[in-house]
Each structure stands twice: as structure tokens, then as C-alpha cells.
């Protein structure tokens, strides 16, 4: 069989035959096609992910008016904005200064809605028993940090205007920001 190798015709290089060139063109076109397919697939996946994010949500407006500072004597907790806006409007002292501020009703433990207990003068969470003083500081139960405050200011008509789109956390020192309280 040793003679057989010499008798085999020399195969020309692939790019010198019609078959080779056509094959290369087909491979390139297939590769291009696969690229386009994966690009289209990727775009489709991204568009589907974007589809799953709603563009319209129905919520009460984030800004609302809450009466004049005169409606809030010292130590008063307004409960009428809890149901619709999720806000306690409170007049109390923080670090020795009398302020009117807006506390979030959401417990900082796992997100249940707190209740105001007038007789005990504290906010209590019904889920796991977290307790907060009137000024929002946590003192009992599993809550790790105080209730969050919302931005509050006096609007042009003299009323308190609360903006729920801005929050302030006490443990980050953000309660020093004058945007989250109205001095009395």
C-alpha cells in the first residue's frame, strides 16, 4: 500500500476551488444570519423585559396639603392622612426643638402599616410588635431604625405641603435637613 499515497492527486487549497469559495461564502452568510438572529433574539428579550414594566400606575398624588401649622398643637398626631397617603403628620420635639413633620406609616421592620395608640402615646406595628415614640424613634420590638420622614414645607397659601417622593432617614442624619420639618 505504500505506493498508494504517491498516486493520490494533490488536493488544491480550499480557496482555489469553486467548491471552496462557495463553501466559504455559504459559511459567512450563515454566520451573518446567526448573528442577526441572536441580535434579534436579544432585542426581543430586552423589549419583553421592558414590556413587563408598567408605564402607568394608579396612585394618589405624592404631594398633598395637610392644613395650616396652627392645626397642630404640641404633641398632636394627625391620623386622617394614613388611609389615603400613608402619612402621620405630627407636632413634636426632636433634639429639643419643636417641629411639625410627616412620618411614614410603614414599619421599618418588614413593611406593615403602624397604628397610633393615643392612650399609650406610641406607634405600634401589629405584625411583630415594633414600637415607635411619637417623634418616630424606634424603642421596642424588631424595628431596626426609626420611621422615615417625608419632605414637608409651607406652601404659598400658608398650608403644610407634604411630598412623599422624598424620604429622610434619621439613622443617616438626614433629619437635620430643614426640608423634612417645619419649625414651630
Amino acid at each position, binding site marked *: 500500500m505504500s505506493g498508494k499515497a504517491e498516486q493520490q492527486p494533490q488536493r488544491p487549497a480550499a480557496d482555489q476551488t469553486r467548491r471552496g469559495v462557495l463553501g466559504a461564502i455559504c459559511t459567512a452568510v450563515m454566520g451573518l444570519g446567526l448573528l442577526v438572529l441572536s441580535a434579534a433574539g436579544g432585542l426581543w428579550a430586552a423589549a419583553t423585559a421592558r414590556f413587563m*414594566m408598567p408605564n402607568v*400606575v394608579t*396612585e394618589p398624588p405624592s404631594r398633598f396639603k395637610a392644613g395650616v401649622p396652627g392645626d397642630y398643637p404640641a404633641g398632636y398626631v394627625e391620623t386622617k392622612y394614613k388611609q389615603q397617603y400613608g402619612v402621620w403628620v405630627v407636632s413634636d420635639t426632636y433634639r429639643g426643638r419643636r417641629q411639625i413633620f410627616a412620618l411614614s406609616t410603614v414599619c421599618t421592620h418588614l413593611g*406593615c402599616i403602624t397604628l397610633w395608640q393615643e392612650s399609650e402615646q406610641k406607634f405600634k406595628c401589629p405584625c411583630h410588635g415594633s414600637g415607635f415614640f411619637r417623634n418616630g424613634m424606634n424603642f421596642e420590638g424588631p424595628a431596626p431604625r426609626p420611621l422615615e420622614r417625608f419632605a414637608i414645607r409651607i406652601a404659598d397659601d400658608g398650608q403644610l405641603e407634604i411630598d412623599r417622593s422624598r424620604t429622610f432617614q434619621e439613622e443617616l442624619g438626614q433629619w437635620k435637613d430643614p426640608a423634612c420639618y417645619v419649625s414651630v
Partner: protein
Amino acid sequence: MSLRDRIRGSQFWKSVFRHPAPVDRKNRMVVMLSNIILHLHPVSIRRHALRLGFTWCMGGITFFLFIVETITGVLLMFYYRPTLEWAYNDMLSLRDVVSLGVLRELHRWGAHAMVITVMLHMYRVFLTGSYKPPREFNWVVGVMLLLLTLLLSFTGYLLPWDQLAMWAVTVGSNMAQAVPLLGAEGPGQQVLSVGGVDMITCTSDTRFVLLGARIVTEETLNRFYVLHCVAIPLIAALLMALHFWRIRKDGGISGPL
């Protein structure tokens, strides 16, 4: 001709059942393989497949419960509307007004049982080493099925729309905002920002996509309804098909060495 032979020789019968009842092994295989229901099981199984002390049959029971859940679930869908106005009332009326009111409880107990049996199945597979090569990928598929089972439970839990449902989903979905990179309050949230603008905010993170709003509300109920009744069962069905295919191709349920 007897009545039996007349029926069996009729055109109707021969069109539905193409082959006569098997009398020998070859005909048995022909009948099994040409019947859509019978071919789901293998023609013959190894003896060890029947050792309940070894297999526990928990995988089969889980699949049976999935079928029960699908059937009871579809029946419940005829009387349940996933809206704020009707969800809770429809659940009460399914219990008190609709015939066979125990159907809702069967669905619920079936769900609890399915979670238990799927855990026992996983435990059995682990104890018998049936995750070892060549079955590693099937174990992974099984874990994905476990996650889907738990997600089915989670999404279904919201549908009665009672206090328990709403708060459970509130707490559970709060976890989605702590997801790294994709959660609004998770680590690395600012990594995905374009030109200083945060891409992941409380209206564009995983929690928002899951709930369809910023709190658990009517959009969430609808989303969870679609996930619970259509999306997750479809994916689970595909993965189950793969799971059973793998077992079949590995020669049936694994047995002791």
C-alpha cells in the same frame, strides 16, 4: 359472531384502537408504543422501580398532585375574578355558594401537599445518590422545578386577597427590592446607571416588575393571577417534560447499585 367480536371488528373500533389487544410480547410493545396515553410509561420496567422503600414514589405523587392542582385550578377559574372588587368575594362564594365548595380547599391542600412531597422527593433523590453522574443535569432541572413549585405557592397565596395574602406578598416582595444590582435598595444599585441617571429606581427594579406597581394592589393581583395560572405552569410543564425525558433516557427510575 359474539357481540364482543362484532364491536371489535367494527370500523369505529378499529379506527380508534388500531391494534388488537396484545397476546404476546411483540404485540404488547406495538400496542404500547402506538397509544398516546400508554406510551408515556415504558413498555416494561425494572423490578427495582417498584421498591417503595427505596423510591418512596414521591416524584410520582408530586406529578399526580400537579395534575390535581391543574384540574381543580381550572375549575376554580370559572368562578374567580382577579379584581379588587371581586377577588375576596368570589373566594367566599366558591366556598359557600358554588357546588362542590370543597374544590377550593382541595386546591389549597393539594398545594401544601405538593410542596411537602416535592421536598421529600428531593430528599429521597439525595439519600439514594440519584444525582450522581450521569444524572447531574436532571438534579438541576429538579431544583428549578422546586423553585417553580414554591413560586406557584407564592403567587397563588395572593389570590384570595385577604389580609394574610396581602401582607405575606408585601413582605415577600420587599425582598425583591434588596436584590443586588437590580433592586432599588440592594447593593450595587448604582452600578447600572447611564450618564449619572439611575436606571434602577423604585419604579424600574425587580420589585416593580413583580408587583406591577409600587405597592401590592390590583395590578399585582392580575400579574400574580397570570403568573399562577399560565406562565409558571407552562414553564413547569416544559421542565417536567425534560425531567421525565431524562429519567426515561437513563433507563427509568434509578435503583440500588
